[in-house]
């Protein structure tokens, strides 16, 4: 179930953004890629999840559970991603936002139950019918993480998900995220510019990684 980067490098107009990266992330572990803004760390994440824009080229191989996912379109990769912004769909209730991520083919009562259960786990009991806009920042980022996890991803990417949170909230959400990664036993990759965000797993510093 591991996520493996084999000599992964991204080029733009023939210029490499960073030296080739080799990284093996085991299930339940969160690796960190550090670097200042503009060093290409978010681009690396979009390459892994499959949304690399056309101006960039990907070299090397990305393996999920030992299979190369380079040619697989984004929607079939089964990789969850959490952004800086919560990106909850503003026109749907919290419940619908979460149900949207559940796999198809479940009767409605079961979907409702799963959503309820997930909300309970994150301290958001009874939030099914709430408008995302009425939630606090911390509640929104927890809901956003729940939505990502309900899709049962085989790996999780974290694109500076804590950078918009207040200092006090940061630690709490961080712990919640790493806990969930361990519980689901999936590999996770965090990119950040803030050394305080760092996870316990392997670390690559792109500023020195030239």
């Amino acid at each position, binding site marked *: 179930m591991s996520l493996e980067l084999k000599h992964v490098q991204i080029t733009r107009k023939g210029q490499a953004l960073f030296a080739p990266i080799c990284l093996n992330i085991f299930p339940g572990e969160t690796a960190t890629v550090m670097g200042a803004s503009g060093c290409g760390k978010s681009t690396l994440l979009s390459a892994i999840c499959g949304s690399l824009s056309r101006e960039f080229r990907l070299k090397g191989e990305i393996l999920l559970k030992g299979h190369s996912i380079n040619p697989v379109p984004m*929607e079939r990769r089964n990789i*969850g*991603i959490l952004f800086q912004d919560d*990106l909850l769909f*503003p026109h749907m209730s919290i419940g*619908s936002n979460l149900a*949207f991520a559940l796999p198809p083919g479940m009767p409605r009562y079961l979907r409702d139950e799963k959503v309820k259960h997930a909300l309970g786990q994150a301290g958001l009991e009874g939030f099914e019918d709430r408008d995302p806009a009425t939630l606090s920042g911390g509640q929104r980022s927890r809901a956003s993480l729940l939505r990502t996890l309900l899709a049962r991803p085989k790996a999780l990417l974290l694109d500076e998900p804590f950078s918009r949170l207040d200092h006090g909230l940061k630690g709490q959400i961080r712990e919640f995220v790493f806990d969930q990664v361990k519980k689901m036993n999936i590999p996770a990759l965090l990119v950040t510019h803030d050394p305080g965000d760092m996870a316990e797993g392997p670390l690559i510093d792109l500023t020195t990684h030239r």
Partner: protein
Amino acid sequence: MPLTRKQHERLANVVTFTPHMRPGNPPKARADLPDQADQGISSGTGMGTFLLLFPGSVFFTFLVTVGAGLWGTWLPSLGYLPAMGKTTLTLHPWTELFNHPAIGGAVRSTLVSGWGTALGAFLLSGLLFAMNYGSRTWGVMEKMLAPILSVPHAAFAIGLSFLISPGGWLVRMVSPGLTGVDLPPAWVIPKDPQGLSLMIALVLKETPFMILVMAGALQQIDYNATMAVGRSLGYRPAQVRLKILLPQLFPHMRLSLYAVIAYSLSVVDMSMILGPTTPPTLPVLVVQWFNDPMLETRLMGAAGATLLLGMVLGSLLLAYILEKAIIRCFEWRVANGRRETLLSPMTPVGRTLLMGGMTVFTLTMVILVIWSFTWQWPFPEVLPAQWSFRFWEKSIHDLGSPMGTTLITGLAATMAGLVLTIGCLEYEATLSKTIAINRYKKCMSIIYLPLLLPQVAFIFGVQMLLTWFHLDASATGLIWSHLIFVLPYIFLTLGSVYRSFDRRIMTTATLLCGSPMKAFLKVKLPMLLRPILFSFAVGISVSVAQYIPTLFIGAGRFSTITTEVVALASGSDRRVAAVYALYQQLIPMGVYLLAIFVPKLMFINRKRMQR
């Protein structure tokens, strides 16, 4: 790069304490500066009072015109028309209306073409977006949108009838090879009694409009982020657009959809060219009755116009109920987790539809050009046997007066519309409380009424009103009536860009030059030149396309290119009709080109001004 708030505040401080500042500047204002900057207030209270004149006069004009227009139609429908010596209220016009032999067929074809158009344009724009957005075909289509939308309805209708009629280009292309016919077949197309050719033409014309509105609304949503979230949850791109983006886009499209419903139920010029004839659609019938020499028939016309108003309002209500019902039905289904969609395998169908639509538009233009240069064109031939410039040459002698009227009316109405719109938006910019802005916007939504009501349902009353002011059949009256329809479109196209203008730029500019007016003229207007010119082009093309106001308010004394085109379309000479249809097309096309290239040339060395 707009200044960040910090930079701007620093700049404000620097300016505040600049020694060479004129001593006349009140020190109080200086002390207030940081606060003012925070709220983005760029003008004092005196300016606000002056600016209040704009929304005030717009509100009053629209209230009076539409209100008097409606009353001036309702009362005659009850037999009350003092100008003609009728002062007793009676239901006689209504009984006459419902006993008229044409009414059933007219109402039926109106509803079929109107509802068919609204549903067709709405579903088609939504599905085309879901299936094609981001593809190369979609990119080509977006480039073609402005020219497509600039085609006046009448010119498009004539081009389309040259294409699909029995002796039209499409039949010629396959005859006699495929069809084996030497004479045009005896189809009743266009002008079929069901109103289907009218419906098809309207769908073709209104779908691009809905797509334009959708493209505008899309700028308010972070498309790429939404796409990334949706796809990372396992949804196909088409499914993300269908399930997540369209529901978010719809609220921005509602007003335009309602305008399409109202328009397609009450369109007159296009219906006279492509619609059924015996009986025609209800709006055409109403116009015929209004122009009847018999007073009783005119009163029945007023009743018919009011019936049409009821049909439109009922349809809008139905659309609203349908929307609620659909939301109830699909709210849960959106979150049912189905990742696959029938749309994905249907992508080639979507591409074909999109290409087909663009091809039809191109062909209608090409066939107009061909007919305008034709001398002789016997039936099954694909191209004319003899070409000629004669009809263009001849048209130049007859063209002067209608062309002049068209241009003067269009320019006057559009300039007035632009000044009023900018004035209203500037007043809005002086409001700082969200509640006040919302209340103001609610009040100003009165300007959209003319788009949501059938023109024939109140133009008769407007004519009465202008007669009362002795402005009927005058240039002022004509421009006034055009302004009522031009202004809402200018507001629609300019509003969102104007509102999103960064207030801090105006604050900075005002602080630097010391006068809000100067800052407005030297900084804001030039920066907004592109959107202003674009709404100018929209205004001109809306004015050029007006048929009903010119017909009624001009009272036969004014003819524009459009009234000429509609009159010629029913004539037998396709060549003359083609020439005039092209003239009608030329004006908006030219103005759109100006709107695109003038800012490009003016700001040729300014990368950020090139979008």
